[in-house]
């Protein structure tokens, strides 16, 4: 009974963080995919400078810690360069999306390269331009290959949003920490509930990823 009562008390407090977690996730996913496509396409560019520059971005953001990147964006860059990102919401969204965009750009690049060479040859034989080949033949097939991986990374991004509690954003984990600090004995139940919250949020993403896997099995020529 004590347990249920505790849950009833804690639950509403945690839901206060829901909006922050979800909006950060949506923002990070949107910009993350955007950066992934831009960087992925740049790495396939015929311009050497563009390829190298994007390569540098990808390696820096893959090779360093997301928390440190977040702190850089929120604390260090405004101080050094006077660039304000507007709010900690933007700092969180940009840090997470730059980081995951770097990872996902490799998926974009790999999927485009994985579309069979014969496909672009057939498109050339139909006299399509470079843009038309990409738009009508390569990307529709490459995106089918990307979708399941994008689903996986969306789930990871959801979990990464909990880091924004470290730059003072009041997300689910932040509220959990507040409840625990005022009532230390409830730590296990608080963090159990926090886990449940993330899991419930992840469920639709997991479901969507499965859907995408079966969708992507159809309609791709590879080899």
């Amino acid at each position, binding site marked *: 009974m004590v347990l249920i009562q505790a849950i009833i008390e804690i639950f509403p407090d945690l839901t206060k963080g829901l909006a922050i977690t979800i909006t950060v996730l949506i923002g990070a996913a949107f910009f993350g995919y955007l950066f992934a496509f831009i960087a992925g396409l740049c790495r396939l560019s015929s311009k050497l400078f563009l390829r190298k520059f994007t390569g540098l971005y990808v390696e820096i953001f893959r090779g360093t810690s997301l928390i440190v990147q977040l702190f850089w964006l929120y604390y260090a860059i405004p101080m050094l360069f006077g660039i304000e990102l507007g709010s900690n919401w933007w700092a969180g969204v940009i840090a997470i999306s730059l980081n995951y965009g770097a990872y996902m750009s490799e998926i974009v690049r790999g999927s485009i390269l994985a579309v069979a060479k014969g496909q672009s040859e057939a498109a*050339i*034989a139909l006299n399509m331009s470079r843009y038309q080949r990409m738009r009508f*033949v390569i990307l529709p097939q490459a995106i089918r290959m990307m979708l399941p991986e994008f689903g996986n990374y969306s789930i990871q991004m959801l979990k990464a949003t909990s880091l924004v509690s470290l730059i003072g954003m009041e997300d689910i984990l932040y509220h959990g920490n507040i409840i625990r600090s005022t009532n230390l004995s409830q730590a296990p139940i608080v963090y159990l509930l926090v886990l449940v919250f993330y899991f419930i949020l992840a469920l639709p993403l997991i479901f969507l990823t499965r859907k995408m896997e079966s969708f992507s099995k159809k309609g791709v020529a590879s080899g």
Partner: protein
Amino acid sequence: MIEPIVTFQDVHKSFGNSKVLKGIDLDIRPAEKVAIIGPSGSGKTTIIRMLMTLEEPTSGDIIVNGTNLWKMEKKGRLVRAHEKHLRAVRGDIGMVFQHFNLFPHMTILENCMTAPLHVKKEPKAEVKQRSLEMLDRVGLADKVDQYPSQLSGGQKQRVAMARALVMRPKIMLFDEVTSALDPELVGEVLQVIRDIAKNDDMAMILVTHEMDFALDIADKVLFLDEGVIAEQGSASEVIEHSSNERLQEFLHRFRA
């Protein structure tokens, strides 16, 4: 004398250190049907791939309709052609591939319609009607809404031909189009090519291993051996009456 629609002038092609083609000279006239035969690795496919702009020649000139395909004039000098030039020149050329290369994410009808719609910017109703006619001609009128994965190899290859024909090319290239097919499906594909050869007035270049078929439809047969055209002439001259030893050996191995 009719002007040739395609001319090769001393065309060479190397891949790394290996010289595949060592000086190809060739004239193809409008509506002429040319078969290229020869041992594998002799560079047959490379010839038509260069014409389709899928491979760039190492040296030499390819002239299509009076325009140099791979070179263009810039400030009075010939420079390497850019994409726009290639597109302008290759618009009259269509190609069918050994492995079909249909677009798997499009229906059969969409496979045929995409290029005329977006490349030639023709009206949709007209493109649709022409695509349906062409698919009917290759015997696939009942498959238009299916996806390539639902078809047999022979059906896929017939779609690939319809897709190329809808673009109304003046030159059609066939790259060993029956080599990837099960033996019982070869006939239906050859039948369609025979129909095109008899009824359409475009030039055709066929890289093929089907000797009897080549003999039947080709006006001219080229025997390619070790990177050069070792023998050429009418089908009966080359296949039945040539004294070229390598050719005899090649044909013998084929008929054995």
